């Protein structure tokens, strides 16, 4: 199944709407044919000084067709675009849901500018698929049918002649142009993604580029991409020019052929002179439906390339296997003092990110009973963060076991697993919205007071209260309006609000100076008394109340 079809089928609901738009388009085109035919007929009748009642009727017809045409064109465009935007929204949701399982394991292999292009520009490109690829052929088929039947009414040969020209112009040109430009269209879509990826990467890292004198990575590369687009754009313009020129040529030739036929039919006596003017004008009006077809190829090529980029990502095998309904377990929840108690048991866990890569975890085993405060230390690269990735079900594990209250982690629903474990890691994201919205991610029902309490726990309450806009202060792109320390504490406060049975702090306090780090830790432990807190760090904090000290080295864990 082609990728365009795959996308169309996935979102569905387009058929009735393509039909309505095509029908309205046909009414517009039909009225155009009627208008020109009627006008020509009117003039011809008048030339014969034929003042019968029919003349008034013809004038009425001209008026009716004129109004119908204007109104139905408006309706066609309005309905067409409205429907398209609805469908595009559906495609966006489909795509977002489709890539969600791939974060972060698969998505991190793509540049974010490329992903942005997919969800934005590539999906926008599909707009043309509906309006300029699917609708016009249907409308054109109907209009051509009308035109051919009208001409065939005078003589079958006229209808056939029109049909032959229409096929040349509406089928042969588009198909050959499509074949000719397919690779150009695809490369243009790809280059656009490359350009956006370069721009996002370069603008984000602009300080580093300037500091190291490598402005060319932004400027030179994007100039290079813009230049690389040039041949494809030229070829497309070339094809567009040829198609437009040929179409204009064929319209004229069709009109001349039909006219020539008409003149000889006139001499045979099989055609009345008064109809002669109608013939070329019907041809010209019919071709109005065929013109858009010669441009459809370009849009088809681009839509295909865009759809392929969407499908390719959505169809990547998921990084984590969801348990089937029959295998799915529910966590037994023992509560104590209002808290859900969850014991964490890791047994002989081994893991590597990909075949051929070294083992990051090697038969790691650990038991962390509910409610304890555990500190895991170890050099960077020893597998601490990998353990977090597995606990959050971002990657699948197959050797060894991770159990929550004696229930295997990978047989829990993904949402349930993630509701048990909360993580604060260095690469966590702060959204470009208010502090409140960022905090609400932890608990969507929390009142402002509760949010401020969480901030107080991480020694951030006074800072927030002192901000001009308070909780409404914006965090900036990935929290870039905050200092490193503020950013980390907002992320911790957000995680505290979840009240998850297990909270992991993965190097989450490293931007704070020692005194602040201890204050924040005390706040966290007080907030989470009775719940499990695991702190991953390079250096165990000098704080009382550590129940369990673990050393992580070369993929194994051991108690110290």
């Amino acid at each position, binding site marked *: 199944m082609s990728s365009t079809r795959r996308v169309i089928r996935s979102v569905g609901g387009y058929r009735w709407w393509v039909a309505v738009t095509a029908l309205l388009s046909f009414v517009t085109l039909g009225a155009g044919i009627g208008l020109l035919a009627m006008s020509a007929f009117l003039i*011809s009748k008048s030339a014969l000084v034929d003042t019968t009642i029919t003349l008034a009727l013809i004038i009425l017809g001209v008026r009716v067709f004129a109004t119908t045409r204007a109104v139905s064109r408006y309706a066609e465009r309005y309905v067409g675009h409205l429907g398209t935007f609805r469908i595009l929204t559906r495609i966006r949701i489909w795509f977002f849901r489709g890539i969600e399982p791939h974060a972060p394991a698969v998505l991190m292999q793509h540049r974010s500018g490329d992903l942005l292009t997919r969800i934005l520009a590539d999906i926008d490109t599909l707009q043309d698929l509906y309006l300029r690829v699917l609708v016009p052929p249907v409308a054109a088929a109907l209009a051509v049918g009308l035109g051919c039947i009208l001409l065939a009414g005078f003589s079958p040969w006229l209808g056939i002649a029109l049909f032959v020209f229409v096929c040349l112009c509406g089928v042969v040109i588009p198909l050959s142009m499509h074949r000719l430009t397919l690779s150009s269209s695809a490369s243009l879509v790809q280059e656009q993604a490359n350009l956006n990826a370069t721009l996002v990467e370069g603008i984000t890292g602009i300080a580093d580029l300037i500091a190291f004198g490598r*402005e060319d990575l932004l400027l030179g590369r994007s100039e290079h991409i813009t230049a690389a687009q040039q041949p494809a754009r030229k070829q497309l313009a070339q094809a567009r020019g040829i198609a437009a020129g040929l179409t204009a040529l064929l319209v004229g030739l069709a009109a001349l052929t039909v006219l020539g036929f008409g003149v000889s039919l006139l001499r045979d006596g099989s055609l009345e002179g008064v109809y002669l003017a109608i013939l070329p004008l019907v041809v010209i009006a019919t071709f109005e439906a065929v013109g858009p077809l010669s441009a459809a190829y370009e849009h088809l090529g681009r839509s295909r390339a865009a759809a392929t980029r969407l499908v390719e990502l959505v169809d990547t095998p998921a990084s984590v296997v969801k348990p089937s309904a029959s295998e799915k377990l529910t966590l037994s929840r023992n509560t104590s003092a209002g808290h859900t108690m969850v014991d964490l048991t890791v047994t002989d866990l081994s893991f590597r990110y990909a075949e051929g890569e070294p083992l990051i975890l090697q038969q790691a085993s650990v038991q962390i009973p509910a409610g304890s405060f555990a500190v895991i230390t170890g050099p960077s690269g020893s597998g601490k963060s990998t353990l977090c990735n597995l606990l959050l079900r971002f990657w699948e594990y197959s050797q060894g076991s991770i159990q929550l209250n004696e229930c295997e982690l990978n047989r829990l629903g993904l949402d349930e697993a993630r509701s048990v474990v909360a993580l604060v890691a260095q690469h966590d994201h702060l959204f470009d919205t208010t502090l409140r919205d960022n905090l609400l991610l932890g608990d969507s029902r929390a009142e402002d007071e509760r949010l401020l309490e969480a901030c107080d726990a991480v020694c951030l309450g006074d800072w927030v209260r002192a901000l001009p806009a308070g909780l409404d202060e914006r965090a900036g792109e990935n929290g870039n309006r905050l200092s490193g320390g503020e950013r980390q504490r907002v992320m911790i406060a957000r995680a505290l609000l979840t009240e998850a049975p297990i909270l992991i702090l993965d190097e989450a306090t490293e931007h704070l100076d020692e005194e602040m780090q201890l204050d924040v830790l005390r706040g966290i432990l007080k907030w989470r008394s009775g719940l499990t807190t695991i702190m991953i760090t390079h250096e165990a904090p000098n704080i009382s109340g550590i129940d369990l000290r673990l050393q992580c080295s070369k993929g194994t864990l051991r108690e110290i």
Partner: protein
Amino acid sequence: MWPRSLLAEHPQVRRWIGISILLGLFAAGILVAWTILLAGVINDGFIKEQTLSGVLPTLILMAALLLLRALCIWLAENSSQLASGLLRRKVRSDSLAHLIAVGPAGLSAERTAELTSTLGQGIDSLDAYVSRFLPSAALAVMVPAGVFVTIGILDPWTTLILLFTGPMLILLLAVIGSRTRSLTQRRFEELGWLSSFYLDMIQGLATLKAFGRAEEGAEMVEQVSRRYGEATMDVLRTAFQTSLMMEWAATAATALVAVQISFRLIRGDLSFDLALAVLMLTPEFFAPLRRLAIEYHAGQEGNAALERITELNALPAQTRSVTTKGQESSSLGFSSLELSTLELNTVGFTYAESESPALEQVSFVIEQGQTVALIGPSGAGKSTLAKLLMQFMQPDQGQILINGQPAQNLQPSDWRRIISWVPQQPAFFAGTVAQNIALGRPDASIEQIHQAARVASAQEFIEALPDGFNTLLGENGLRLSGGQRQRLAIARAAIMDTPVVLLDEFTAHLDEDTEAQVVAAMSALMQDRTAVVIAHRAATIASAQRVITLDGGRVIQGQL
């Protein structure tokens, strides 16, 4: 108006557009002649009752005209593509070069994705503006004028109708155009906003998942997509209304002409061939105006993009970055990289959006080979000082002096040979680990790269990566831990071999073992060199020969 000055700046673009318009005009002229001939042939067949062979020569002449017209259309398409291609490249390079000159400090209030969409799709929309809107606008004035004169010669009475409706349509177009202007502007802003939103969602998808809120993300995608669709529909609705009015007025005028002509035909005031020619020419009078109404939307989109680009180009340049080639010549005669003193002399800086200065009267002298720690609470002005030292912005007051000479007098390329930078959150770029280490020295040998990695104690973990130094590093730094990213940044600075190194909280992420290694390696490297360290941790401060304490933008301790 901007577009006009844009064209004035690019004479080549103007020339190609001119050629395209000329060709369009020629094609229109051929069409007028062809139409008159067509009316003649119909007249010959219908009224003069000629045979096919009698009209054949005219038909052949008309076919030749069609061929010529097709050629014009083809060439016009090519030359407008040339024009837009030239313009697109030029505008993109110029704007990017300017953004680099504005630098990270000046762009801190801008959104990455919005800039990306302006420089990507925004500049691409100039394509439609230049290749379709501008020629259409010119032809919408010239062609109707030509058709008007032709009809005036054939039948002066009809021109009365055209004289009445033509200017009315132009007026209509202008009125509605001014209405859609602000709508188009809003839609363009909405697009920038939408880009930022999606980029934020993509980059934060893993975080959303960790909090079990991916489904809400999908809902937000839907809302935002719908809002964008509505903003687009607002613009399109007005554009369609314009089209409706144009279409209706044009067809109504055509119908009026038809009726008026038919009555005069009946009365014998007009010959059939003239009547038919006038009837068929009347739509050609309106066609360019209708086409302009259709292209108007594309034109305004390009205009909105241009306005945003103008706005960006008006941002003041704050860095002194190398954006043009040929600036390599040294102004200070820095043949060898010698540095005796780095001095700040009463340096002050106030951010545009702030009232109180971020730095005030900061003065100190650093002698060659010293390691100086800059400490102070957050908000003390440490990072402002770092930005000034990196020349991402220039001090409002005072000077930075190198060997007693103002830093402003140095070529930017010289400045980079003096100071290298280890940022707090280093950005990496698509490429291999080796390429990222050699960021500032693209011509570095493998030996030098390995040496730099050794200095930063990064060699061990790099060699453990799947492809060692050739492992591809994404913009997010693959799966590197915070400490690993930091050590890559150190290696990247080490390879620069500059007399001054600026380290921004560089030991914040390192475990004690590694930190000790790095500090040792760095101090070995820093022998006879100067290091400015913005620090939190005691370990770094301990190795410093001097500690300068900042608070509230002033040096409170350690000033010489």
